[in-house]
């Protein structure tokens, strides 16, 4: 049976092709009724690469992949890699304005999108072409061979910026193959494992801890959207062993009455990332299904960084560094602190991006001395386990997505009747954060209901659904400290 090889492949394409060579007739991908072997997936990806070449894509070009969790995402992502180009995965829930904002940071040659998504932006000049996956299939040849170059860009990822604009970063082929090695070696993935990705493949968690790990190890990938019945059936029927998800998904399964221990009996590793896992969900899930949820800590800049594999998962730790990664906690001056002392989490990793692109390219401060400053606060205990205790950044984690409050504030401030606005995350009954906007109207005699409706409508027109405030609270003023700092804790 296949196991990860020791020599690191030069590129994502060569990592994929090595697995195809080794495991060609074994199962690679399952999406609903579609089942592809590695050979069949290679044929699909080769056809995409050929079609991209025919459309003028050359090595180094960016190609946006605006697709959900399906076979088309995987074959498009791999086709881009085989063409030597750079994949720019974007959320298919984005509306045209959000797509335009992202593509302004990272111009692309073309866009691959499902027909319904493509129809939303065909009248906008976002790229020189827009194609659906079926328009990129059926090409018999891959185009000219591409010289494997570890330094070549493979992925342009985005994280929420602190200025209301998306923050883009290029990850090289070497970054992504290192990430795949760190993860598969640390958790011991073999070709006998089966991944289930119902978390978005266009995000770091799904891409790194499911797709790249599958490509590296030859373990098949089962994918689709998160739907309780379909997800439970997939775990049971496909004998899924590795399940990367987010707290929302684990919480929903733990609360779903008809989910049985039998359904989840094949799982050996449940990995939670994207937001802190609450203790109640962790305990309830482990008690009901007999498998603990492991917390993983990672970021768009480098993929996964630490994972908790200790026997006792009840301590709330995100565990220890993945193989090949060093973590250090530092104080305000950048000096390492003693065990147990809280400071900023920094790490160094071969998977780390070289820096940001676009207007954020000048922001080199997080990358000083090869140690990346995450902006997250935490401490390492005497045993070496990392605990995250806070964020120096202000992102809101909702339904597995990160929302940049400044992006929502920028939309609201554009609306008539708004003098001031602060957007925060507030916990709902299950501890899930929801987006809340606290708005100071510019005059007292406004119709409050009409203003609330207008503000939500404006957000719906310009933002993806998960960013639209669930709560709009009107206040006479925003609470501030004597130094003028917004006191967010009084707004939650």
């Amino acid at each position, binding site marked *: 049976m296949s196991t990860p090889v020791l020599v690191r492949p030069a590129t994502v394409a060569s990592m994929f092709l090595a697995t195809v060579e080794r495991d060609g007739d074994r199962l690679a991908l399952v999406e609903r009724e579609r089942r592809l072997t590695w050979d069949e997936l290679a044929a699909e990806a080769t056809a995409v690469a050929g079609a991209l070449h025919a459309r003028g894509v050359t090595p180094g070009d960016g190609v946006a992949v605006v697709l959900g969790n399906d076979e088309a995402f995987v074959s498009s992502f791999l086709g881009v890699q085989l063409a030597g180009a750079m994949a720019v995965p974007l959320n298919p829930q984005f509306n045209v304005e959000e797509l335009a904002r992202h593509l302004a940071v990272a111009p692309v040659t073309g866009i691959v999108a499902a027909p319904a998504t493509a129809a939303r932006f065909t009248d906008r000049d976002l790229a020189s072409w827009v194609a659906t996956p079926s328009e990129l299939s059926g090409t018999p040849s891959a185009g000219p061979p591409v010289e494997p170059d570890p330094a070549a860009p493979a992925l342009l990822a985005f994280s929420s910026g602190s200025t209301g604009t998306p923050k883009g970063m290029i990850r090289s082929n070497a970054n992504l193959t290192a990430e795949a090695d760190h993860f598969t070696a640390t958790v011991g993935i073999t070709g006998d494992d089966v991944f289930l990705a119902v978390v978005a493949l266009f995000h770091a968690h799904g891409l790194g801890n499911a797709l790249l790990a599958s490509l590296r190890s030859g373990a098949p990938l089962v994918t689709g959207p998160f739907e309780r019945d379909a997800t439970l059936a997939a775990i049971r029927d496909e004998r899924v062993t590795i399940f990367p998800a987010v707290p929302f998904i684990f919480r*929903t399964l733990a609360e779903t009455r008809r989910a049985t221990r039998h359904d989840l009996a094949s799982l050996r590793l449940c990995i939670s990332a994207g937001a802190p896992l609450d203790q109640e969900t962790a305990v309830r899930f482990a008690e009901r299904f007999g498998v603990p949820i492991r917390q993983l800590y990672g970021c768009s800049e480098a993929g996964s960084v630490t994972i908790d594999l200790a026997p006792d998962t009840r301590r709330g730790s995100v565990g220890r560094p993945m193989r090949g990664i060093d973590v250090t906690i530092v104080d305000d001056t950048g000096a390492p602190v003693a065990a147990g002392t809280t400071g900023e989490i920094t790490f160094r990793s071969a998977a780390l991006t070289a820096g940001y692109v676009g207007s954020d390219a000048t922001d080199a401060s997080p990358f000083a001395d090869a140690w990346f400053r995450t902006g997250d606060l935490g401490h390492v205990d005497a045993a070496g386990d990392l605990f995250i205790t806070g964020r120096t950044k202000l992102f809101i984690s909702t339904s597995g997505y990160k929302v940049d409050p400044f992006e929502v504030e920028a939309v609201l401030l554009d609306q008539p009747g708004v003098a001031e606005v602060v957007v925060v995350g507030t916990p709902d009954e299950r501890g899930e954060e929801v987006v809340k906007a606290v708005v100071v109207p510019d005059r007292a005699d406004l119709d409050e209901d009409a203003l609330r409706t207008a503000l939500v409508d404006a957000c719906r027109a310009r933002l993806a659904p998960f960013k639209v405030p669930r709560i709009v609270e009107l206040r006479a003023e925003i609470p501030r400290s004597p130094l003028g700092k917004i006191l967010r804790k009084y707004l939650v």
Partner: protein
Amino acid sequence: MHGEHADMDARVRALLGRRLKVDAPERLDGAAPLRDLGVDSAGLMNLVVALEETYDIDIADRDITVENFGTLDAITGYVARRAP
């Protein structure tokens, strides 16, 4: 509104307020699309789990459609059909 139905309507409104933090649920237009309140698919799943617990029913994912869950009125009608 029928007494029993009015009671169910009030309980579903209370769930929307408590579980999804929807503003002023008691004043919500029963025919207004929940999407317009910022209720996304994750929020809807949250509500479905709560309805299962509250009314002791299993709701199949194939039943989670716009027809059954698109508005407050639709949800109340669906639960009334399913609840014992």
